[in-house]
C-alpha cells in the first residue's frame, strides 16, 4: 500500500460506516428497506454508500 492509501483508508472506511449506520437507522423507521427488489442489509448498504461516496468525492475533487 502507498502512504496515501494508508492515510485514506480509515477516513473512507469510517465515512462509509457512518453513512451506512445513519441510513439504516433512518431507513428502519421511515423509508423503503429495499432497492431493486433486494433488501437493504448491513452489507449491501455499505456497497451502496461506497458508490454514492465515490460520486460526492468526485464532485468535490472536480470542483
Amino acid at each position, binding site marked *: 500500500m502507498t502512504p496515501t492509501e494508508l492515510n485514506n483508508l*480509515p477516513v473512507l472506511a*469510517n465515512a462509509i460506516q457512518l*453513512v451506512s449506520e445513519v441510513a439504516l437507522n433512518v431507513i428502519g423507521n421511515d423509508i*423503503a428497506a429495499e432497492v431493486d427488489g433486494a433488501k437493504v442489509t448491513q452489507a449491501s448498504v455499505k456497497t451502496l454508500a461506497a458508490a454514492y461516496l465515490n460520486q*460526492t468525492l468526485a464532485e468535490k475533487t472536480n470542483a
Partner: protein
Amino acid sequence: MLDPNAIAAAVGLNQKYAGLGVSLTPIPDTPLSMICRECPSVGLSTESATYEVASTHLVDVSRGEEHAQLMAQSVELASGAVRRTLDFTRNTVYPHIRRVVEKYTTAMASLASCPLPYDLDAQYVPEVYRLAPGRSFVEQWESTPRASSPGVQNFGNYSPEEIISLSKLTDDGDFNSSMKELLEARNGEGVNLITQVLDGRMDVEKLPTEYVLPLAIVIKNIEMPKEGLQTTVASYNNARALIANIAGHRALGAIRQADTAFKNLSLYPVVTSAKPGCISVNGEVWSELLEQKFSLEMLIGNEILGRKFRGAQLNDADAREAMLSAYEGDKARRQAAHELNKKVAERAAVQNVLRDDIKCVAECGEFTVEGDTYDKAWGRLRDFIDAVYKNQFVQHDPVMVISAAICLVWYGHTDAARVVDIMYTIEKEQPSLPPSQVATLATLKYLCVWVTSQITVSVAQH
C-alpha cells in the same frame, strides 16, 4: 469498532483516489474527524502493509469504547437531523412544488406538440354511386337532355322512415344498406335535405351532390301524390320527371367525373375546402396514389413548392425528391419555430406560476422567511429565473427550475433544495424506481454529501 465490511467496501474507492494522488483528511472538529482519531493507521509501514494487514490493524485499534461511543453519538445526531429534513421536504416542500408544477403543466398543455399546418380533405364519392345498381339507374338519363330547373316543387311531407323506405332501389341488400348509411350520416343530414326538396323548401339545384342520386330514386318511387296534396296527376308526374331528370343528370355527372378523375389520376376535386391550409383531394384518386407510393409528405411538399400534383411526378425520382425535401425543410423550420416558441412560453409560464404562488402566499401571510415581503421574495425569484435562462441555448427542465426556485425563495433556510435535487437526479437516472426506493437512495446520497463536507480533498501537484 470499525466494521470489516466498511473497510472492504472502501478498498476500491481507496485505490482509485490514491491512484489519482488524492489525499483525504477529515476536517477538524467534525464528527468524522473525532471518529477517525480513534482508529489511526499510524504504526504500519508501507512496505509490510497489505489491505488484509491494514484491515486487521484498523479493526484492532478501533476496539476501544471511544470509537463505538463517538460513532453511536454521531449516528444519533445525524439520524435526527436527516429525519427532520426528510419529513419537512416530504410534508411541506414537495406538496408546495407539486401544486405549482400542476399549474405549470396546465399552462403548457396547449404547446405539447407541433401540429401539422395542413389538413387533408379527402372527398370520397359515396358508395352508392359506385355500386352497380346506382350506376345502372342513372344511365337512363344518358340519352335524354338535361331539363331546366322548374324551381321548388311541393310533393308533400315525408317522414324520415318513408324517405329511407323510398330510397330502396332493388332487393340488393348491400346497396340499400349503403344508401341508409349515407342518408342517416351526420345526424340524418341526407334525409333532412331530401325532405326539404320534397316539401318545396329547397331547390333541387341546391341539394349537395352526394344526395342527388338518393333524391332521384325517391322521386321515381313516389308514384302517387300524397293525400290532400293540391295538384293534378299530370302536373304531379311532370314535376316528378323534371326533378328526377335534374337529380339524375347531376348524379350521372358526378359518376362520370369520378371515373374520369380516377382514370386520369386527377387528384384535385372541383369543389375544394375554403379552410386555410386544407388540401382537398379526390378520395378514390388519393387512395390509388398511396398504392403507387405517393405520400402525404409529397403532397404537402408540392403545396410548399406552389405546385399541383401531376401524374408524371409519380415516376420522376427528381420530382419525388424535391417534394420530400420541401416537406422536410418546412418541417424543420416549423419545428425550430415551435421549439423557440416553446422555450419562450416555458420561461413565461415558469415565471407566471411562481409569481402567482408568491402572491398567494403573501395574501395568506404565510412567508416562511422572517421579514419577507412580496417585493423581496419576487426580487429574489426574478434574479434566479434571469440567471437560469440567461443562456438561451441551454435546455432546462422546467420542473427542476420550479423546484429550485421554490426551495430558494421559501425554504432557503433548510437543506430541502439539496434533497429535492438529489431525488430528481435519481428519478431521472432510474425512472422505473418506485418513490419509496428513490427516497432510500436519496437518503444515502444526501448522507454522502454530508460526510464528504467533513473531508478535505487535496490533489497532489506533479
